[in-house]
């Protein structure tokens, strides 16, 4: 795909992510019997945060938050230009590690525990993405995401179990129940706000924007399972998104040990089974 | 209400512990010259009360060695009336409810000039 398209994609991603976040809040409210905020409420929130006095605990934190945003944008660029999927996974991991480091750079115990959990979440979720890269290689003979468009058949047809594993880590990445462990949109948690406890003003807004980009990235990964025709993929991604919102509302938050066990047990199991089945 | 002497308090409480009574509370009443401590226990849904007199300036015995749950209320009395308890575990030294720069013993009374009980300000 063209360079112009990728740049446009990167610029549009925060807006798309913000709208999706707003939609999430609206649907969640309706599921709970509430009226809910307007769909563009997330933008109001972020604009307000930009207007706040900007304070930070130390310079490292600022650096890591910018790194989080930039690496996230980089990951999106790699994905939109359909580059090597493995490199994309590394970029995504870098971005998340930056967030965890931003949490570690402060002295707040809440933020430290949140960062600990963030790292465990990365450990739990990234392997499935690596398995997805491997599946991509098995299907198309290369790690290039562009290969999918030449495949002629959707990835979902041969790798339904890996799709299930990706849905599992989607819950982790979107920070929703039962895995809203390190930082959730609902501040009611045993560790206050987790990683973002010590973020404020502009830097909180930046981390929020990075999170929107992450949302777009993760839905794009779901889209990759059915790229031709493209609208089926988009419907698939939206359906997965709606399913996540419903799941968020019918589960309690579970514990970190349970999350790692599930993500490794089911995520690894399903992925390996699928790959074995495919190669046989 | 029975009155129990100070030196028999621990025996009495030990008896209640042995017949599996539940600790309810201790109520301190300021009688101006001395304190009235009213111990309340629950034995098979029946309230067992007895009264112990305590001198104002001498430390009193804590029952937290027998009923661990009594530490909160004993600390509270220590805060509000300034009656010290011996062997209190854990002991907040009069700072469970009060802060370091706050008032001391706010629940105490004193006899005013008109012969009527008036309150320490």
């Amino acid at each position, binding site marked *: 795909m063209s360079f112009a398209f990728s740049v446009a994609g990167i610029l549009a991603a925060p807006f798309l992510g913000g709208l999706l976040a707003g939609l999430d809040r609206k*649907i969640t*409210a*309706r*599921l*709970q*019997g*509430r*009226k*809910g905020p307007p769909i563009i409420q997330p933008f109001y929130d972020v604009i307000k945060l930009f207007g706040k006095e900007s304070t930070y605990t130390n310079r490292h934190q600022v650096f890591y938050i910018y790194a989080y945003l930039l690496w996230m944008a980089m990951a999106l660029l790699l994905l939109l230009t359909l580059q090597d999927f493995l490199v994309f996974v590394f970029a995504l991991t870098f971005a998340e590690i930056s967030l965890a480091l931003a949490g570690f750079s402060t002295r707040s115990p809440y933020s430290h525990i949140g960062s600990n959990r963030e790292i465990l979440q990365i450990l739990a979720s990234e392997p499935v993405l690596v398995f997805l890269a491997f599946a991509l290689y098995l299907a198309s003979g290369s790690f290039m995401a562009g290969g999918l468009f030449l495949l002629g058949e959707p990835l979902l047809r041969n790798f339904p179990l890996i799709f299930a594993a990706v849905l599992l880590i989607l819950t982790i990445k979107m920070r929703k129940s039962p895995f809203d462990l390190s930082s959730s949109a609902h501040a009611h948690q045993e560790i206050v706000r987790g990683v973002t406890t010590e973020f404020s003003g502009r830097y909180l807004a930046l981390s929020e924007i990075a999170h929107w980009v992450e949302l777009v990235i993760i839905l794009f990964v779901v889209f990759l399972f059915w790229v031709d025709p493209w609208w089926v993929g988009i419907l698939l991604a939206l359906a997965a998104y709606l399913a996540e919102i*419903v799941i968020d*509302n*019918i589960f309690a938050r579970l514990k970190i040990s349970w999350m790692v066990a599930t993500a490794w047990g089911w995520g690894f199991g399903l992925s390996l089974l699928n790959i074995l089945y495919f190669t046989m | 209400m029975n009155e129990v002497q100070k030196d028999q308090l621990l025996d009495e409480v030990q008896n209640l512990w042995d017949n599996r009574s539940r600790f309810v509370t201790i109520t301190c009443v300021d009688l101006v010259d001395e304190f009235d401590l009213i111990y309340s226990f629950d034995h098979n849904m029946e309230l067992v009360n007895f009264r112990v007199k305590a001198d104002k300036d001498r430390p009193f015995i804590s029952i937290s060695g027998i009923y661990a749950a009594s530490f909160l209320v004993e600390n509270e009395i220590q805060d509000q009336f300034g009656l010290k308890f011996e062997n209190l575990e854990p002991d907040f030294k009069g700072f469970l409810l009060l802060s370091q720069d706050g008032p001391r013993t706010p629940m105490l009374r004193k006899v005013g000039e008109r012969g009527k009980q008036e309150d320490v300000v």
Partner: protein
Amino acid sequence: MQMLATVLNNLFKRPVTREYPYRYREPFRSSKGRLVLDMRECIMCTACEKRCPAGAFEIKRKEGLFKFDPYSCVVCGACVEACPKKCLDVDSDWRKPVGEMRTEIWHIEPPAKVKSPAGAETP
């Protein structure tokens, strides 16, 4: 998973949120919203001042001064029961938000001879 039915049910129903203040909700008939004073009948007997648990009244009989602080008032209704002339009443409508808290002051010409209401010792 037991919540699934409830959650989906909610999605297709109207939200239960009340859109206060855009939509006014009629108060219940017996709601204790605020205290309204009708000072025409007042005889400055200070029964309300004596009964008020919050100290919202301040009455100076000699000067003919009657002060009522609506923001100390807890709308318990004790004064309404005490008032011999029925000048006080509890209205079911809630007090509206204000920008400035103001004490209500009346100047009343005290009657020549004021007699405190006698009776049983009821609160």
